[in-house]
Every structure is written in C-alpha cells, then in structure tokens.
C-alpha cells in the first residue's frame, strides 16, 4: 500500500496538496473532502515504513482471460488511452478503492463469466432481447461486474456508453431547460459531457461509422456521411446543440447493425424514481421520463428503442435511501418486496411500461473461498494490513464479513487494527506493559 501511495501520487495529476491544514485553505475544499484517501506526494514519503518493494503487476484484463478456469484470479485494468475508468468515471466506493490500490484490480467471478457469455450472445441479437439488470444485496459486487462488462466489450471493439452515476441525472444537480419540440427537459451540460466522454473512449470505432441522414440543428448542420465522431465532437463543443446531438447519435447507433453497442448504467433504479428532484415552473416534480436523457435511457432499457446488435446492462444501487428500488422494478425483476403490498399503493403505469422487458441477472451475495483468497492476497501484496498474510487472518476476516465482498474488503481488511507483532522486543525489561508489543508466539 505504501508503494500504492507513491505510485498513485506519481501518476495522478492533481496531487501536491500539503496537509498543513492551517496554511492550506484547499485542504477542506469539497474536492479534497470527497471520500478521503487522497495520496501524499512521493517526495513526502521518506520514512522507512513507506519504503517497500512494489508488488509484481497483475496480468491485464482481456476478453480471452474470462473463462471458467480463471474464476478466482485477479486481473488488472490497464491504463490505456481510451480508459473508461478515467473518462467515464466510476461509482464512488470503487473510486475510493482504486485510490488505495496500486493497480485497478478486479477478480473474475462466476457471474463475470455468465455476464460475458450473455454479452457474446447479445452481440448478434437486437438489444431488446438483452436488457439485463444486475441485482443483489448491498456490497455483493454489482458495480464491479458492470465495470468488467464495460472493459470486456471495449476490448471486443463494441461501442460502449457507460453512465456510472445515473442518479446525477435525476437529483437536480445539472442544468435543465424545457424544449417544445420533444416536450421534455433537456440537460445540456450533462449531454455535452457524456458526448465528450463517449467520444474519448470510442473515438476509433466512431470514426468508422457515418450518418445515414443529414441533420440540421439550429446553427450547425451535419450532412449525410459525416462520421459519428464528428457529430459527437460537434455536440461536445457546443452546449446549445449537445442534447439534440446526443439524441441523433443514439438514433444513428440504433439504426446501424455493423457494430454492437453496450449501454451500461449504474444506479439503474434512479431512472425509475417516481419523481425526480427537478421542479417545473409550477413547482410540481418533473418525472424522470419527462427529462430527455433519462427518457432515452428508459426507452432503450425497456426495448421501446433498441440497438440492432448489443445489450443494455444496468446495476442497482441498494445503499441510497433517496433513490430506492421501486415496486415496479421489483416486480419485473422478481425481487423480494419488503413490506406487504396494498391494493391502494401508488403505482405508475408509465414506469411499469418502461420496466417491462428488464431481466434479472443476480450477483451472488458471497465471495467463494477461492475468490476471497485472491482478493485477500491482492490487498496483502499492496500492504493494506501489516498483519502476516496467513490462513488464520484470512478465514477470520472471511467469517466476520460472511463472504460479502464489500464487508470483506472494507470492514475485514481495511477496517481492522490487527497488525504484525514487532520484531525487536527486549525480553529483559521486567514489566510486560513496558515492552514493545507482545511477546512473540514462538518462545
């Protein structure tokens, strides 16, 4: 982990923040406060405890390695030019984990193999036959499986659109303006950013695809034959046309059948919230299907619009009380409904229609012992714990967390105070409490 600290600090660009709180006003800025675990610069890590040999790099994650034989093996996502983790971002808990690790690791699980097999089938079928939603209890690894699917498809040269935090679309944190033609609310800044990110990650593939029909926006026109990369670039540059450019891009991607498309959405349940946090001028809440971008995502997720080849993959987030998983989604995905259902309970017929066609892909709630052992070893190599990496520690952490991946890592490994016994203990000191640490086991 010490090497992780230095490596992360060396590679990240916005690092040199001193932690002298008195002098540095930026220490408590929002950016620094989010999630903590900001790394110190390498120059400040002089003490012997920070010195260590960096672990051997793990093998790269590639589509060929995802097989049943590699279940329980750790692979790392490479830092490529079109790295989706850098351009699209990741959910917050994953971001914090990757700040601590020296490489962007992930372990291959049986659900990874199942998902990739489904995606292989989806590459030849229209996407309305492959609308999957990863479900499972809190901390079972849905976001990680989604990220693995994104990396898999990208390596297979699909076009990948990954939205890691879909709740930012509905929680009133981005600009919105009403549009009379579509009778919905545009979110120009979000659309602009999404186009830029999609372009950054998929530029190579988008250069090969061209528009079938020309379009004429208010100030810009894109004739037939323009590459989709040029369309995305135009939309990313000008906020005024970004929303319509994104709508056009999706239209073109739906019409073509050469390249499969993956639409990956984390926080999937946020799109099905009965009321978004936005308010219209009459102060009534705007529904998510009256916002242009979520409407497009809902239409693709329900099969009302579909890609000729590809899939829509969503992952639920169960930890956000502001955007819980709604009744309509629970019924379609056949999830257990907590409280007894009442005939008078409010339901939305529109959301029921938009939830139709979603298929459940359950993620196992426990790591298998082999998978947990691989994850344990990976963290130990990064020196997350100063305790010796033996079976006793591993099994105790596995049992305490019940195999739940998030609990195993955060409470088991990172949340424990267990450490290695100190090596220099002066036996001659008469009072045990004055000796450093405890007496070693082997006397």
């Amino acid at each position, binding site marked *: 982990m010490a090497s992780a600290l230095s490596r992360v600090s060396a590679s990240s660009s916005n690092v040199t923040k001193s932690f002298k709180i008195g002098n540095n006003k930026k220490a408590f800025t929002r950016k620094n406060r989010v999630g903590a675990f900001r790394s110190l610069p390498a120059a400040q890590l002089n003490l012997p405890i920070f010195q260590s040999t960096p672990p051997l790099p793990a093998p790269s994650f590639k589509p060929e390695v995802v097989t049943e034989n590699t279940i329980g093996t750790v692979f790392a996502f490479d830092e490529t030019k079109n790295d989706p983790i850098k351009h699209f971002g990741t959910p917050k808990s994953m971001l914090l984990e990757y700040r601590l690790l020296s490489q962007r690791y992930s372990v291959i699980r049986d659900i990874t193999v199942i998902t990739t097999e489904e995606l292989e089938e989806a590459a030849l079928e229209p996407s309305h036959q492959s609308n999957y939603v990863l479900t499972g209890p809190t901390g079972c690894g849905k976001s990680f499986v989604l990220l693995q699917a994104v990396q898999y498809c990208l390596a297979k040269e699909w076009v990948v659109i990954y939205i890691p935090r879909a709740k930012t679309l509905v*929680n*009133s*944190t*981005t*600009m*919105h*303006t*009403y549009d*009379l*033609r*579509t*009778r*919905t*609310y545009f979110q120009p800044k979000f659309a602009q950013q999404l186009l830029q990110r999609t372009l950054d990650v998929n530029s190579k593939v988008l250069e090969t695809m061209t528009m079938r*029909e*020309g*379009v*004429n*926006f*208010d100030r810009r026109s894109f004739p037939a034959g323009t590459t989709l990369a040029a369309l995305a670039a135009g939309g990313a540059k000008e906020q005024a046309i970004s929303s*319509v450019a994104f709508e*056009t891009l999706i239209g073109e991607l739906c019409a073509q059948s050469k390249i499969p498309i993956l639409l990956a959405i984390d926080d999937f349940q946020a799109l099905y919230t009965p*009321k978004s*946090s*936005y*308010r*219209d*001028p*009459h*102060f*009534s*809440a*705007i*529904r998510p*299907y*009256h916002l242009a971008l979520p*409407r497009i995502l809902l239409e693709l997720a329900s099969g009302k619009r579909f890609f000729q080849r590809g899939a829509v993959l969503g992952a639920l987030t169960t930890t956000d009380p502001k955007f819980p998983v709604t009744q309509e989604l629970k019924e379609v995905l056949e999830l257990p409904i907590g409280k007894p259902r009442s005939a008078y309970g409010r339901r939305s017929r*529109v959301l029921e*229609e938009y939830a139709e066609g979603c298929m459940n892909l359950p993620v196992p709630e426990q790591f298998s012992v082999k998978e947990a052992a691989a994850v344990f070893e990976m963290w130990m190599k990064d020196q997350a714990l100063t305790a010796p990496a033996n079976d006793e520690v591993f099994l105790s952490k596995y049992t305490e967390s019940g195999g739940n991946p998030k609990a195993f890592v955060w409470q088991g490994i990172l949340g424990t105070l267990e450490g290695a016994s100190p090596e220099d203990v002066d036996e001659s000191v008469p009072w045990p409490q004055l000796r450093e640490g405890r007496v070693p086991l082997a006397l």
Partner: protein
Amino acid sequence: MVHILGINLPDNQLARFALTTIYGVGHSTSHRLCARFQIHDTCRIRDLSPFQVTALASFLSSPQSAFPPRGATSAKGGPRAFVANKKDDLGVTDILKTYPLASLAFKPRPLNRGWTSDRELEREWENEVKEAKEQRERDRAAREREREEYLAEKEKKAKEKEEKMLTRLRGRMRTKVIAALAKHKATFKTRTGTTVNGRTTTTKSKPVQPKLPPKSLDPLANLTIETALRRLVRDNIAHQRMIGSYVGRRHAMGMPVRGQNTRSNAKTAKKMNRVDRWG
C-alpha cells in the same frame, strides 16, 4: 458578482441560498423562485445565464405585475389549456398557462424535416388541446344521451307495471291504490321537470351561486418583498397603535408583544420593537 435589487450575490453561493438574503424571501419562496426560472438545486450564482438573472431581477422588482410562467404542465399528462385544481370545490383554478409534456407514445417531430418555429409547435399543441376538449364534450354528450335513454326506458317500464297492476284491482281497493299512488307522485321528484307542491323542479338544476373570481394558487403571485413588505409591517404596527390595542402599546413601549417574560430576557424587544419599526 450579480446584483439583484441592489443586493450583491457572491458568485460562489448556491442560487437557492443566495436568494434568501432578500427581505421577504425564505427557503420555500426561494425554492419556488428557482423552479419558476428553471434553476436547479445546486446551481451557483456564477452558473446563472444572463437571461435567468434578468428574468429574476425583473420578476422581483415587481412580483405582482409579472406574467404567469409559461412552463410545462404537471405530471397528470394529457393536453390541457390550464390546470383546474380538482381538490377545491369552490372552483379555485390555477390560471398559469401550461405547456405539454411528452406522453408515453409521443414521437417528437424529426429534426431532418427542417427547423420548426416555436410558434408552429405551440399552434400544434393548442390544436391538440382544442381537439381533446371537443372529444371530451362529445363523450360527455354521448354519455348523457345514453343515460337519458336508459332512464326513459326505466320510467316506461315502471308505468307499464303500474298499469298492469291496476287492471287486476277492482272496486274500493282500486280507488285506494290510485289515491296512494297519486299522493306518492305528488311528493316524489321526477327526472323531467314536474310541478310538485307548487314548485317546478328538475333534478338537473342546482341553485345558482355567485362565482368567485379565480384566485391564484401560486404563492409567487402575491409575493411582497423588501420595501413593500417593510411598509406592510410598519402599517400593521401603526394600525395596532391607532386602535389602541395591547399590541400597539407594547410596540410603543419597546417591550415584548407576544407574552414573553420581561423579568429577564427582553433584550431583542427592547432593541427592535417600536412603532416605526424597520423590518
């Protein structure tokens, strides 16, 4: 730095919070103002467009005379020219003009057919509203006609049954039954307009009540801020003084008005309470 009504709003502040610095605007009014001008919750003052700033400033300079918002309708969906508040039986209506929201099956006009002006789209929407209204009228008329036919049929059957019963009766029994039926009909309200007890009534007619002028449900329509609000407060206190009430006397003495303790802790009242109170 944005100046609204002479107040300097710092760039870094959330717009929803910055608006509360205006006297008379609290958090709920500020939320409504932001919704009116399509300012999202985490918008900072520096993110406001010049149009939004001008619109806000012009609205706040005279809230009473501002036009109602031209925004989208509420979630009930469907084309409507204005929203009628169904909860209120007094006929209080919301007089704000509304614009449409896309229904489930709505397909927007494609872009490659050329750019359509807003006026044309508005006209399309107005036509839809008109057609929907006409359709509702036609449906209502059809339903009424059906009901009329059904009730006429029912009355006809009842009359036939009565006649059939009367043909079976003879003599004193027959006269008694006819008299009883006549008495019953005299007090029974029929559907068609019949003179009963000297008063012609129909079940359809209701007593005519005078229609109240439509009140606006929108709190922003009657927004009083800054000088106008301070004047209002001062006028209220002056009125209390003029009528010689307890409240007026307490203000004049600079003491607490609402029954607070004065043995200790009346410092704010002693500082602030007076007849010509500023805010």
